[in-house]
């Protein structure tokens, strides 16, 4: 059911851990399944993600998307990170089963939470607000009805 890439990132997750001197931290929970992701970012003065670490309590898809998202944002600018969607993360993993799409929301939201934290801490002009964190919760009911 999972692609090879998903299994690879699940088995050998990249960037697991914490950053004690993180510039931003985002923690989100997936209401539906009680899963949690915590994301740590180290951001340079000119807004480039220099280092990233995560910890996730969740299913295989949650762990794999967490891992993949850290790879995708490392070295990117804050602006570029704002554009990262859960769909893009899932695509980078060669796709997720329909029932598991919502798990990738966890990674997108953790990133947004971290960037919001960064904005609040630094007062920088970043195009993000609490509103963006309300959660794409409706995605969770995208079930396995293959009628498309």
């Amino acid at each position, binding site marked *: 059911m999972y692609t090879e890439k998903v299994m690879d990132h*699940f088995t050998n997750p990249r960037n697991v851990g914490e950053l004690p001197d993180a510039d931003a931290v985002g923690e989100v929970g997936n209401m539906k*399944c009680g899963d*949690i992701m*915590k994301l740590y970012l180290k951001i340079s003065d000119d807004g480039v993600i220099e280092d990233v670490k995560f*910890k996730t309590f969740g*299913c295989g898809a949650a762990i794999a998307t967490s891992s993949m998202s850290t790879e995708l944002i490392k070295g990117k600018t804050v602006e570029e990170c704002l554009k990262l969607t859960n769909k893009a993360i899932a695509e980078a993993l060669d796709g997720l089963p329909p029932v598991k799409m919502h798990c990738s929301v966890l990674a997108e939201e953790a990133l947004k939470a971290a960037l919001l934290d960064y904005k609040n801490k630094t007062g920088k002009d970043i195009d993000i607000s609490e509103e963006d964190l309300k959660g794409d919760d409706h995605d*969770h009911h995208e079930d396995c009805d293959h009628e498309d």
Partner: protein
Amino acid sequence: MKKVYLDHGATTPMRAEVIDEMVKIYREEAGNPSSVHQFGRSARKVLEEARMKVAEIIGAEPKEIIFTGSGTESDNIAILGTARLKAKQGKGKHIITSSVEHHAVSDTCKMLMKEGFDVTFLPVDADGLVSVESVKQALREDTILVTIMHANNEVGTVQPIAEIGSLLKGHPAVFHTDAVQTVGKLPVNVNELGVDLLSISAHKIYGPKGVGVLYIKKGQRVESLMYGGGQERKIRPSTENLAGIIGMAKAMELAKNELEAESTRLQVLRDRLIKELLETIPETKLNGHPTKRLPHNANISFEYIEGESLILSLDMKGIAVSSGSACTSGSLDPSHVLMAMGLTHQTAHGSLRMTLGKSTTDEDIDYVVAELKTVVQRLREMSPVWDQRAKV
């Protein structure tokens, strides 16, 4: 790589003896049991012999045995078939069931609610037990059906069916039990249990998938779900799955003969598995009743871990287990069984069902305990929740 299959609660591999019997039928019985000619009569004879065998094993009469297409179908005929008929007869629309039933029962009861039936879902205690007292309290004059499973498929808790059966004596409500998980593991006798209807599935006892039995006590009537030929007393029209039925009878016979010895063997292995896991891995807990449980079932919660990632990690070590969480089967909700037992969302999500079987050895248990220790530790180290807990 070593392969350890600890998911016998989901399905079992076929036994060689069962395959052999079925192949014999596939090769030698060309007829349709409803045909008048010799090919048909021969098939009919084989079919009726299987019916006699199955009947004898559960203490029933042959004509009380209906062969169906699955355990799910047996449950559905029992529940929909009884409820719709009784309602038409004006006997009432109240049904009693438990909150830990398999979806084949619980979803069917929920469907009946949409049809206007009134369903009481009895609570269970922390061990997953339904109390006889609660059945008594829920019972009404217009109760037409009580359906409570014999043993739970997730946590293994065995319900007091015989006691409920006694309680229901004298009440017109029909009593059904889903014995899909107990046949072949515990003695199952319809008279001792005092049930009117009982469901069995072949693939849980080393028989073929797609064959079930519904025991219907003499005198009980059910509406059928399908219409067509006169097979299985019109309750289950369709040309009979002869080889599958023979395979089911054979599987039940073998299981019955070996029941005592094999159950004891499994229980010893299972008890060691539970003991070693609880002793060597911190923050773990056994789910289900400590003693009133299926001999081959261990269901354990590992705090701060999500079930699917545990399953996948074990899978990469060749260990097949399943999760209380039904994430993968379309729903993302945690197990309704564990929730009914009072577990938190998080604990329910971190639960693992390990169900042993004929192939399970002492070495398997050693291997699983060792691998689980490593995997749990790795996942906990990745978990932000474990982290926070550690820091408290």
